[in-house]
C-alpha cells in the first residue's frame, strides 16, 4: 500500500510542476507587459523591470515563480482592486465557496446514493422510473434554471429563504444556492449508483451472500455498496472539484462572494494575475482531490493495493 501511495504522490507533484510551467509560459508568451504606461521612459521601465525581477533569465524567473506560487505569493491584483495582494482577496472568498460547495457535495451525494440504491433494489418499478426522471432532469437542466425556480418559488413567493446570500446568516441563506448546486450531483450520483448497484446485485458473490442468510440491510450496505462504490468515487472526484471551486453562475445569481465570482470578474477585467492564481488554486485542488480518491481506491478495493506479484501471493 505504501508504495502505491508514494507513487501517486510523486505523480501528483510532477503534474503540479508541469501545470506551473504551462501557466508560466502562458504569462510569458502573452503580448504586452504590465508596465507599458506611456508615461514611463526606458530607464524607468528598466528600473521597474529589475524590481520585479523581469530582467533575469527565463530559467531563474521560472524558479522564482514556482517559489512564489508555492508559498502563496500570487502577486497583486491589477484591475479588480488595484495593488491588493491576491492572497487577501482569496482569504475572504475561498472559505465561503468551499463551505457551500462542501454542503452541496455532501447533501448531493447522500441523496444521490439513496435514490440510486432504491432504484436498483426496486428495479423496473415506479421508484426506478422516478429516479430516472430526476436523473435526467438534474443532468439536463442547467443549474441556473433550478436556481431561478427556487428563487422564485421559495424565495419570492413563499419567502422561506432569503433571495441573496447574507454574511450574517451564512447557513440559512446558503440553503437555496446549495440545493441548486447539488441537483447535478444528485442526478449523476443516482444514475451511477443505480448502474453499479444493479451490476453488483446480479453478481455471483451477492447470491452466495444471500444464500448465507444475511439480511437485506447487511447485503446492501456491507456487501454490495463497497463494491459499487469504486466507480462512483471516480465520478465523484471531478464533481467535488467543480463544486468546491464555486459554480460561477450560482455565485453570480445569489451574489455569493466566493472565488467563482472572483474569477468571472477577473476574466471580464483582464486581471491576469488573478486568473492565473485561481487557475493554480483550481489545479491544486483537483490534483489533491484525485490523490485522495486514488488513496481511497486502495482502501476500498484490495485488488488495487495488493496487485499480483506483491508479497502475500
Amino acid at each position, binding site marked *: 500500500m505504501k508504495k502505491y501511495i508514494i507513487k501517486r504522490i510523486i505523480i501528483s507533484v510532477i503534474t503540479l510542476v508541469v501545470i506551473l510551467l504551462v501557466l508560466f509560459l502562458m504569462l510569458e508568451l502573452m503580448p504586452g507587459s504590465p508596465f507599458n504606461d506611456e508615461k514611463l521612459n526606458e530607464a524607468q521601465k528598466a528600473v521597474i523591470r529589475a524590481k520585479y525581477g523581469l530582467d533575469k533569465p527565463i530559467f531563474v524567473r521560472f524558479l522564482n515563480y514556482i517559489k512564489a506560487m508555492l508559498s502563496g505569493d500570487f502577486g497583486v491584483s491589477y484591475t479588480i482592486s488595484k495593488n491588493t495582494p491576491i492572497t487577501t482577496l482569496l482569504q475572504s472568498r475561498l472559505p465561503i465557496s468551499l463551505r457551500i460547495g462542501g454542503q452541496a457535495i455532501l447533501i448531493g451525494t447522500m441523496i444521490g446514493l439513496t435514490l440510486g440504491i432504491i432504484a436498483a433494489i426496486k428495479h423496473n418499478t415506479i421508484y426506478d422510473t422516478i429516479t430516472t426522471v430526476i436523473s435526467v432532469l438534474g443532468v439536463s437542466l442547467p443549474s441556473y434554471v433550478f436556481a431561478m425556480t427556487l428563487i422564485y418559488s421559495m424565495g419570492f413567493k413563499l419567502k422561506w429563504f432569503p433571495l441573496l446570500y447574507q454574511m450574517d446568516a451564512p447557513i440559512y441563506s446558503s440553503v437555496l444556492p446549495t440545493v441548486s448546486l447539488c441537483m447535478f450531483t444528485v442526478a449523476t450520483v443516482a444514475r451511477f449508483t443505480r448502474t453499479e448497484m444493479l451490476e453488483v446485485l446480479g453478481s455471483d*458473490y451477492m447470491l*452466495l451472500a*444471500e*444464500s*448465507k*442468510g*444475511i439480511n437485506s440491510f*447487511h447485503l446492501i450496505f456491507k456487501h454490495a455498496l*463497497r463494491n459499487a462504490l469504486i466507480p462512483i468515487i471516480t465520478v465523484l472526484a471531478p464533481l467535488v472539484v467543480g463544486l468546491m471551486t464555486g459554480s460561477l453562475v450560482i455565485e453570480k445569481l445569489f451574489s455569493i462572494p466566493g472565488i467563482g465570482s472572483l474569477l468571472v470578474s477577473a476574466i471580464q477585467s483582464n486581471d491576469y494575475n488573478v486568473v492565473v492564481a485561481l487557475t493554480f488554486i483550481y489545479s491544486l485542488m483537483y490534483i489533491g482531490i484525485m490523490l485522495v480518491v486514488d488513496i481511497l481506491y486502495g482502501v476500498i478495493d484490495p485488488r488495487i493495493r495488493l496487485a499480483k506479484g506483491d508479497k502475500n501471493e
Partner: protein
Amino acid sequence: MNYERIIHIIFCAAIGSRMELQMERKQILSINDLSISFQTSAGVVNVIRGMNLSLYKGETLAIVGESGSGKSVTVKAIMGILSNNGKINNGSIHFTYQKDGKETQQDLLKFTKTVMRRQINGKRIAMVFQDPMTSLNPTMTIGAQIMEGMIYHYKTPKREAFQKAIKLLELVGITDPEKRMKNYPHQLSGGMRQRVVIAIALSCDPELLICDEPTTALDVTIQAKILELIKDIQKKTGISVIYITHDLGVVAKVADYVAVMYAGKVVEKGTTNEIFYEPRHPYTWGLLSAMPDLNSTDDKLYTIPGSPPNLLHQVEGDSFAPRNIYAMNIDLRKEPPMFKITDTHYAATWLLHEKAPKIDMPLELRNRINMMYKELSEGDQETMPPALNKELSEGDQEAMPPALNKELSEGDQEALASNKIGGIIV
C-alpha cells in the same frame, strides 16, 4: 443373444433381492409436484413442470441434466433465492430439521424471505456455487467471509469465530490457514477459492449441503481433490448432500442416489448402481452413451440427436420424444408417468408399460456395462442391481413392473400398440 449377456442375467437374477436390504432411510427433504415458471421478455417459460424428488439423511443425491433441464432452478427454489422473475406455480418442498431441540417439518415454499434467511439459509441449508472466481466478495477478507455466517446466525463472539474459521480452513485442506484468513479472494487460486466456499458453507453446521456444479470450472486434477474432500466431509459429519452436475463420471464418484432431469422433469431416479448399471430411460441411455470412454476403441462418439426443447411453448406428450429414437406414437400424445422398477428405481418412459415393446439399451452401452462388470471383484458383483432384461421367459415377463397409471384411454392404448414411429425392436 450373446454369451456375456446370459452370464450377466443369470448372476443377477440369482442374487435378485439383495438390493432390497437398504438401511433404514430417513427422509429429510421432499419435493412434491413442483412447478416453476419464469417471466421473460419472450414470454412465460415453464422451467420446472412437475417435479418429485426425495433426499435421505446422510446421503448424496446427484441431480444430473444438461443446461436447460432445470437443475439449478430446483436448488434455488429450495433455498428461496430464485430470481425476481421466477414464480412458484405449484407444489411444496418439505424439509425436516431440528428446531429448539425438537424435530419439525416445514414447507419451505411457504416461508417468507425473511424467515428463510433467519432460519434456513446458511444455517440449516448451505450452498456451494459453480464459479469460484466470482462467488467470493472481492473486497472482503477470507476470514471475514467465513466468520460472517457464524456471527450472524449464532452470535458467536469474534475470537471464537476466528478459531473456528481456522479449523474449517484446515478441514477443507488449506495450508497455512492463519495467513489465509487475512488474504483476499484474488490472492487465491481457483481450487483454493472453492475450498473456501465449502468452508463458508460448513461454517454454521448445516444439515444439508447443496453443491451446484462446484467443480465444473476447475481443472480435472483439482476436481478430483475437491470431490474427495466433499466425500470426506460427508463421512466425518454425516451431512446430507445434493450435488448438481452434468458430468456422469462425477455422479458415479460421489452419489448414492441419482435423479436425471430433462426439460424440467425428473425422467429417471434410482440408486447410483441402478442408474449406471441398469438404466431404463432412453435419455439416460443417451447420456451414458455420449460419455467418452477411456477404455473403448470406438472411433465415433454416440450423440443424442437434436437439442433440448424450447420451454416457451407448451409441450405435447413426452418432451424427450423428438430426440428419442425409441419414441412411440403414444409419446407424442401423452406424457409418461413414473413407472416403478424397484422400491428405489423409477423411470418415466412408456417403454416400461406392460404393453410396450420390449427394448434393451443400445448395444454399445450394454457391452460397456458388461465390461465394467467383468472387472469387478466377486463381492462387488453381488451388489449390482438385478437385471430386468426383457429377453426373459414368459413367466419372467409377467414379473414386469406394473404401470402406476393404468387408465389409458382407447386412443392411447392404440397408440401404445401401434408403435408407428421409430421403435427398434431388439
